[in-house]
């Protein structure tokens, strides 16, 4: 079974075609990174996978299900880690309450936590290694700690697939390394991971697939097959350099952020 299977997928936002004729097939389980310049449609693709956006044409299946027809089933199987800056810092939620959120949303109001929910939260807190911050306010944590809490929230309901939108933004090197170890262990346990990132060099040695997106899939496959200067130049322009130093391949899109 494939974790994601998209065929001729076109998605419009406010009349603007953000994704056009996307064809993509990802094995399950697998670890995939999506790269592309700003406005390439990376987040839109994640939201379409979750069934939050409906395609204008084409089809998409996630873990064998159509997210436009069975969004609840898909969302129960897919954990989502949004960009950290989308989360409100007005709300003084404790880290463990943030994590419990993804279990309680599936209950009926008033959605009170049971002992089982509390045990599940405790288990994932220990797994992610955030025992010391579980009782602290989310808005008072560092970027790396917040990211770990959001990942813990996404995996507490034991999803088959994990979507992460720019998980390393504003995260220090040590936390990045800890998050990568966590993602690798999830991958080994059979969870498919799909990560949107701007900097692929950090994850290049742990991903199975790399997708270069620019409104459509420009290239997809093994990282070394995608990270080629002639392919990257089609998206990022001529001011791009690819540097290889085993086991790492780096590319510097000097004009991707203007």
């Amino acid at each position, binding site marked *: 079974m494939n974790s994601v299977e998209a065929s001729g997928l076109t998605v419009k936002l406010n009349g603007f075609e953000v994704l056009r004729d996307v064809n993509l097939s990802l094995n399950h389980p697998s670890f995939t990174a999506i790269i592309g310049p700003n406005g390439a449609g990376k987040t839109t693709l994640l939201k379409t996978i979750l069934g939050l956006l409906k395609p204008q044409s084409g089809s998409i299946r996630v873990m064998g299900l159509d997210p436009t027809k069975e969004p609840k089933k898909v969302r129960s199987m897919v954990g989502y880690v949004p960009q950290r800056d989308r989360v*409100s810092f007005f709300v003084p939620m404790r880290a463990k309450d943030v994590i419990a*959120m993804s279990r*309680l*949303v599936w209950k009926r109001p*008033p959605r009170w936590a049971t002992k089982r929910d509390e045990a599940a939260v405790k288990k994932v807190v220990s797994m992610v290694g955030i025992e010391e911050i579980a009782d602290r306010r989310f808005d008072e944590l560092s970027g790396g700690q917040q990211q770990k809490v959001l990942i813990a929230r996404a995996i507490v309901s034991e999803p088959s697939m994990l979507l992460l939108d720019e998980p390393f933004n504003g995260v220090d090197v040590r936390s990045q390394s800890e998050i990568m170890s966590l993602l690798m262990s999830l991958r080994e346990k059979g969870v498919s991971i799909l990560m949107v990132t701007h900097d692929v060099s950090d994850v290049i040695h742990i991903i199975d697939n790399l997708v270069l997106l620019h409104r459509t899939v420009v290239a997809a496959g093994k990282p070394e097959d995608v990270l080629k200067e002639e392919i990257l130049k089609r998206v990022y322009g001529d001011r791009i350099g690819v540097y290889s130093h085993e086991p790492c391949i780096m590319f510097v899109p000097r004009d991707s952020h203007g």
Partner: protein
Amino acid sequence: MVDPLSPFLVKAYVAILLMAGISISGSVSVLRGIAYMPAEAAHAALGGAALGILVSHVTNMTLDPYVVAAMFASVTTLFAGYVGRRGGPEAIAAALAGALTLGVSIYAFVRYILPANLRVVLDGYLVGDILILKDSEIAMLSILTIAYMIIFTLFYNEIVYVCFDPEGAEAMGMNVSLYDFMIFFLIGLAGSVATKAVGSLLVYALVIAPAITAKELSGSVRGMLVLTSAITLLAGYGGLAVSLLFDMPSGGSIAVVASLTYVGTMLGKRLFQKR
């Protein structure tokens, strides 16, 4: 010396207790990033109350202006919520500014054409006076507060999640639009309830000052809500005492004590942090 158990004071004590319950809407406004909304809702409620009084006067119908005020404020905030979901925070602000203008314009127009005895009733919604509440108004305040508390308790988690991370909540399968509209409705309802106690001009101070004070001092959302209610109680009873001792308007005294609580907290926090 005023008898502390005189009927009008007992009614004021009850009204303040009910206000403390409903003051959590101030916290919800702060959590949702629309702290200005209860004040706008209160001004819309003023327009609603004016319409209620006018219709009762013209048609001789028994129409409680308080109910019309609550409906008017809730519909206004729901409309703002609808506009905001399509156009973002700026659209909410624009819609509420329009509602505020409409509410105040209706008030001014109705006040102009009402007889003098009804103008006094209408002005009660502008400046409020917790010391002249009638039994029927206390009953209505109780019904609205109890309804508010039931809805809030049942949907507490939804409200917090929508405020914290609407995108993540939607991705988890929650009907974010529905609960966001619920938040707007509850804020409108609370704004109109507070209007009766302190008047639409002072709702902002009573509803928001305790909430932002509580946020500065709380380690969790539940703590913030409890503290908001406690500070509202303190401001209510403290303001009432100031009003009686110095013969000042009750609404203004309550709002001043609520605002001073915030100022005092911020000053205390700064001093504490310097040490």
